[in-house]
């Protein structure tokens, strides 16, 4: 039962994180929130028994993707119009 509560909590947080990542006007914040989203996703998958997928998402989604995205944003404008 505790696990299901945990599951539900993460699912709701995921939606919140996704919306924030798309709404926030600062791209750097957006990519960090997206990293949070990825890590939540990773937790969820680990909880669902997909350990390999969770591991990959942790290294790729929350790790490399974010680093690469931030590296790119440093070469671009940080502000977004929407």
């Amino acid at each position, binding site marked *: 039962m505790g696990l299901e509560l945990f599951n539900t909590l993460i699912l709701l947080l995921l939606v919140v994180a996704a919306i924030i990542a798309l709404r926030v006007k600062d791209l750097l914040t957006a990519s960090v929130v997206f990293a949070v989203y990825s890590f939540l996703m990773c937790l969820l998958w680990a909880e669902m028994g997909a350990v*390999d997928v*969770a*591991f990959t998402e942790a290294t790729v989604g929350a790790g490399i993707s974010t680093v*690469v995205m931030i590296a790119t944003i440093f070469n671009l404008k940080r502000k977004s119009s929407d």
Partner: protein
Amino acid sequence: MKKLSLIPVLVVGALLIYAADDFPEWGNLSAPASASPLSSHFISNTGFDTEVPNMVTAVLADYRGFDTMFETVVVFIAGMAVLAILKNSSGSNSKKKNFHIETEPDIIVTNTVRLLIPVIQIFAFYVLAHGHVSPGGGFQGGVVMGASFIMIALSWDLEKALARFPMDRCFIVAGLGIVLYAGIGLLSMFLGGEFLDYAELANVFPVSREMARYHAMLGVEIGVGLTVTAIMFALYANLATEGRLKGGL
């Protein structure tokens, strides 16, 4: 206009909700996906066919090894395409950089990283080699390995990282990874099986057919790891410097 884009989104949403009604129950053991002969074969026979305890690794590198080969190729393509897009692009510095590269790397950061890098790299090897038994494998190990080079670039500067892993070598290593993967497949084809039929390697190596699969999988994972390591670093290096490979974060 913004409102209009909601229409396709809502249409897709309605479709998906409509379909969700027909889904088998959550976690149902007799759902087609879980009860199909395919899934039960993977679960029951992985140990028998390949002697690998981690079914995901076995399915990834052996049963569906052809997919994984192209997954590696996709990573390789990403690296090549990024290079193709950014190389010699008019790196006009019209915009002033909104950050400055500190001439002297921070001593606390560098010393910490100096301690961390070997640990990270050994962990990467562990993840790669231990993927047969625990979560992990070539891809994850490769990413961790690539991250260690990115860490060098972040804490010192890109030149230092590039001195350890030059861009030319990156692509040679990435190519070698694919050659290793496809080469194992080709070798097993020359030994009389189908492409990627690792069991045929038992003809030349003194192991059983199952163990031949086991060890070939390790070789394949190393190939994946090489490609991924090189390309992840190359992606970072190219994107952080707009392809100039100078300066960077």
